[in-house]
């Protein structure tokens, strides 16, 4: 039994300590917005925030999340930056299939919180762990810049 705080709610989950946070969130807490893509921290689809820091949930054991605030894409919009990111994503039509976008949005939100006006190099650095097979990268970059300029409607 592990006690986790997910999106502001305390959740008692019956999972072993070494279960990756991803599967605890998806299969046990049944929040499916966080995606499985690789299981090896190679693609970023599973990105969540632990105390506002982006982590790959597929390689983070639940034991490492105990006592920390877990935020998933379902709740990132409660944060001002997260909400601005979601709006920019909609405004520029970033998503295609949308599957990786939860992870992209979590990474972008973390970037913009730490670095409100990132350079292209900082965007590359923060976002290159997130694969998008549909190829939405140019629009992801543009959407991050739109948030940076405070330009979302």
């Amino acid at each position: 039994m592990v006690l986790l705080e997910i999106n502001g709610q305390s959740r008692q989950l019956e999972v072993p300590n070494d279960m990756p946070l991803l599967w605890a969130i998806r299969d046990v807490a049944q929040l499916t917005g966080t995606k499985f893509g690789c299981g090896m921290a190679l693609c970023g689809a599973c990105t969540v925030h632990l105390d506002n820091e982006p982590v790959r949930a597929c390689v983070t054991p639940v034991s490492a999340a105990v006592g920390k605030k877990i935020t998933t894409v379902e709740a990132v919009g409660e944060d001002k930056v997260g909400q601005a990111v979601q709006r920019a994503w909609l405004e520029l039509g970033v998503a295609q299939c949308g599957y990786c976008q939860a992870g992209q949005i979590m990474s972008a939100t973390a970037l913009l919180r730490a670095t409100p006006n990132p350079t292209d190099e900082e965007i590359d650095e923060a976002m290159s762990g997130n694969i998008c097979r549909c190829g939405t990268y140019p629009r992801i970059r543009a959407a991050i810049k739109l948030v940076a300029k405070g330009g979302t409607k």
Partner: protein
Amino acid sequence: MSQELMMDLPDINRRRLLKGVGIATGLALTIGINDLVRAAVAEPAKKYGGDAMPGGLKEDVLVFVSIGSDGIVNIVAHRSEMGQGVRTSLPLVIADEMEADWARVRVVQAEANEAKYGNQNTDGSRSMRHHFEPMRRIGATARMMLETAAAAKWGVPRNEVRARNHQVVHQPSGKTLGYGELAVAAAKFPVPVRDNLKLKSAAEFRYIGKQNTRNVDGQKIVTGTTHYGIDTQLKGMLHAVIARPPVLGGKVKSFDASAALKVPGVLKVLELKSSSLLPPLFHPLGGIAVLASNTWAAIKGREALKIVWDHGANAVYDSQTYRKILEAAARKPAKVVRNHGDAAGVLARDGKKFVAEYYQPHIAHGTMEPPAATAQIVNGKCEAWACVQDPQAALDAVAAHLGFKPVNVRVNVTLLGGGFGRKSKPDYVVEAALLSQAMKGKPVKVTWTREDDLHHDYFHTVSLEHMECALDAKGMPTAWLHRTTAPTIASTFVANAKGGAPFELGMGAVNIPFNIPHMRVESPEVQAHTRIGWFRSVSNIPHAFAVQSFVAELAHNAKRDHRDYLLELLGPARKVNPDSIEDGWNYGESPQRYPLDVGRMRHVVELVTSKAGWGRKLPKGHGLGLAFCYSFVTYIAAVVEVVVGEDGEISIPRVDIAVDCGPQVNPDRIRSQAEGACIMGASLTLTGEISFKNGAAQQSNFHEYQVLRIDEAPREIHVHMVEHALDVPLGGVGEPVTPTIAPAICNAIFAATGKRIRTLPIRDQLKA
């Protein structure tokens, strides 16, 4: 393409038969003219486009549209959404024609049922191309029924009322009735016959061709509340992963599940019978399934399995060896699939020949959502939830494997986290259904891990394209020989099929409309050793890589500008009847409606080179490369700018793409498809490779099968659309851009460095 393919295969035989008759005149004379006339009349007209697809086109307004008393208009999306925007774009066409307000439209996803909805097989870049006109007619029908109902309610002449933005207006009085108020009455009026339908003019469109459309899934995507195939949660559901035979045709010799069963959460281990028989079709590969209370336990359980495999005959498959097999086959005369003039004779006689070979390895689709499906069986009926491009094929395959009547199977279509052709093949849905059956009907979700996805894909084919030209004194080709050598997709459907199928050869090998007197294309036969499938733009990819690179090489050889040389090869603007070119396969479209329009080909080349500043002065290490492609009846040309660093590092600051896909329905989604296909094309060019050793795919995850990331992707992609009125038929959108990117990049690299790439992927070839 699966079902279309099924139909194409007998078609090959029919064509052969007709050709086999050879000089038919004698036969015709003995039959007599009257008999021939009668036979010609009796023979049903050949069907094209959506009419020729399984399930055809259905235009029943009562199936596609329903209106609630609250005024919400429900529109059915019968095609699968995988990022191309079809759940928005097709209902949008109905909404526009019926004067519905998009903000008050709800989209309902159809389950698998082609008898009801018409063809649902979402591949071949066909959704808008085939369904635009039916959707318009459905929308117009709904609008006219609403108008009729309003006129009757008011007791006024029909011609005094007009539907406008979700209500009907009585024009003389200004009275209005909302669609919600009219719905019940409208449904009671007879459906107008097709000939009486009045479609909107393009000037009246409010959504078609405009930029103002909300994507129906956008909000849910950014808040993580959509439902993909991998997201299904059912009460009491078991989570399964499967250890499949590493080699196609292999099977389990023996296994020991004792350690797996000790993993906490693992509930059951069972064998799925291997289908070692060819052809592979959509059969599951078999193997050992681990069922658990969560996905993680199932994965851990699978790691603990001890399995001895019988790898079978395909264990010989080795990519290094196989390349030599392809090369040997490509260097010998083979089956002729196009022959105009006497290319073989000219090439044999002429001293001056230009020869080049281009190789591309297998690639995997690598959809970000790996294959996943859930199924349960209740009271003898199976219900599945799955991310499938071809819902009816999934339903049929599940029914066949369970031994159920199709009527007792329901397949619910979720969103697809990427498709690219992989999710046309529903083997994973069958796995879920078989496991549910083995578990007495309990709900079972099968999740493929990334390793499963890369090891057991229906791979894009490996290919070796052998090109030869005889040249005149000016360096222009007088004879052209293309030997396109690759294991065929047909081998997935017909045991041991070899040689290019018409739909493969017709993707940019036989139907190159170059102005060359002697043209010959040959198709050597080589054996497939893995499941070959279709990947976004299919055979256009290797063909365009070879043809467009080769032309650039010829231009350089002739000391000519590539663009000018290419335009001269294309020759004057003209419309070529695809039927006049050997096989005539033209994406299943009518040769009259969809001629090969050389004028449009020339135009995209001219447009893209002008927009990209072709010929502009570039800094050292920069180069521009050009390629064009006719793919899925759409005309594409691309110019790529590359920078090659001192260390051989490649970056792509800019790509320009000209797209002529006929009239545009959802322009922003066309642009996004062009951008995405461009990046996918750059991915396969720079890093895409699946190689085989001892019969098994060698790459297991994204560290070994590398796809482009944001820092490596083209920095700017400019899409230039060619505008058309509605008198031009629609072309495909999802696939056509992909093939132009590899040759354009390689041509740009040559311009930048003088190094010619003939083997994909490029990886570190410039670093040597």
